[in-house]
């Protein structure tokens, strides 16, 4: 194969795999005559998405904004806490067990509490998205800061650098690739959080849409909702990948990377 053809195949791989999945799914449904109320075909799901496009558009927009709201909070809080945890041993020791404990709590269990505090609607969804997505950001920022080479630290300290100097000149730039890598993961987690909360406690958003569709046994619409969430997740992941690659080119050394 010529390098050019190779590149074309390489580029179209993601599309091919998605189309492949849909084809297999469609064929399996038809071949085994799976009833629609169990598993609708992708074509039926896409058709439902088109039929209900206005409702889906509205709910998807709501979910997207909710997710991004929670995600923005997670970034702000995650960077702050990550910086504290990563640059101070004392804070690390104090915060680590709490963080791990907190992260182990299923966020589904937290939604009812949030509903008690803030009522049904957007606020618990934003907060759930926030709670579920800040952890990887904290961990990655802290790791990036804490894994500074001891020799580099010695070079800087022997120049009389303060802790703040070290953080600004080396710590943060060094943590940047870790930070961006965590954003990709965090944003997809944020979708999980917001949709989960919408499913339980909202009358807006894709989560709610799927819940109400399933109570009416409209399975194609439920799956349309799933596909929309997946698409938004992929789009956000892709966007942050691009930003990551642009802003931390040095970390990839111009070579091939995943």
């Amino acid at each position, binding site marked *: 194969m010529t390098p050019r053809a190779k590149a074309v195949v390489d580029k179209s791989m993601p599309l091919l795999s998605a189309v492949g999945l849909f084809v297999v799914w469609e064929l399996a449904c038809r071949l085994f005559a799976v009833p629609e109320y169990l598993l609708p075909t992708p074509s039926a799901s896409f058709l439902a998405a088109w039929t209900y496009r206005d409702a889906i558009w509205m709910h998807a927009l709501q979910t997207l904004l909710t997710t991004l709201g929670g995600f923005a909070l997670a970034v702000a809080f995650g960077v702050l806490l990550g910086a504290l945890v990563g640059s101070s041993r004392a804070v690390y020791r104090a915060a680590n067990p709490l963080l791990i404990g907190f992260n182990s709590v299923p966020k589904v269990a937290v939604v009812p509490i949030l509903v008690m505090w803030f009522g049904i609607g957007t606020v618990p969804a934003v907060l759930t998205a926030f709670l579920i997505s800040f952890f990887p950001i904290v961990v990655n920022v802290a790791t990036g800061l804490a894994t500074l080479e001891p*020799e580099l630290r010695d070079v800087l300290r022997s*120049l*009389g650098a303060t802790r703040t100097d070290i953080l600004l000149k080396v710590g943060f730039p060094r943590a940047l690739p870790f930070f961006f890598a965590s954003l990709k993961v965090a944003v997809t987690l944020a979708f999980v959080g917001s949709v989960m909360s919408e499913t339980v406690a909202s009358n807006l958003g894709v989560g709610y849409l799927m819940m109400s569709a399933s109570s009416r046994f409209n399975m194609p619409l439920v799956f349309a909702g799933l596909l929309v969430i997946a698409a938004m997740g992929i789009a956000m992941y892709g966007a942050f990948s691009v930003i990551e690659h642009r802003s931390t080119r040095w970390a990839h050394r111009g070579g091939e990377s995943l």
Partner: protein
Amino acid sequence: MTAAFVDLDRVTLRYGAGDTLALSETTMKIAKGEFIAVVGPSGCGKSSLLKLVSGLMRPSTGTVIVNGQEVTGPLKIVGMAFQNPTLLPWRTTLDNVMLPLEIVEPHRRRLRGARAEYEERARAMLASVGLAGFEGKFPWQLSGGMQQRASLCRALIHEPDLLMLDEPFGALDAFTREELWAILQDLWTRRPFTVILVTHDLREAAYLADTIYVMSKRPGRIVHVRRNELPRPRTLETTFTRDFTDLVHELRNHISAVRAAQDTIPEDAR
């Protein structure tokens, strides 16, 4: 005798609460502008010695005096370079070299106003080690030897009075290493600063240093001090002279002696 620039008086260093004694009763007097080398078996406390002198660590007992003052915290007049060049991969070579200027006063204050002037200084410095034209390259686009030169520039750009080198050429091939000896000697001749060089390479010590300290196995002690009067500037030719090889031979014997002497004594708390 005039007051030494670096004066270690019976310095002992113990790591942690246990009895890992890294240095024991080490005494050294280094004059201002002197180039000294420390050689000794691996793990004898050479890197620890540098940390003590630069104030990154405090001795367990004894005193470290630099420039007339007891060292109690990190000194600010020090340049350092290690075996690993530790350049920042997101900065160009020029910006890496200029890093100390962003931290050390008074350059830090002046840098904003006199950026062009400082940049000129950094370029001149890079040119003097043969890196003209590589200012805009990133460290990972340079070879190991080039990175090490840039690291030397970074250690010297703020004109420190004291340069600490911890096996700076240890990872380089023999040819590059000899080239860098000449470069370092050049930099030092142009503006004499005090150098403490830690090395495993006896020829390197003989080529560069005015005084060579031989340390014993752990816990490290100075077991031999050797003045090196070979005429300067030393060149590659010097390394083939009788005096040079005799000196290397003599150092070699001392090292063999400390290694053998201690092998008969059981290692402490294995």
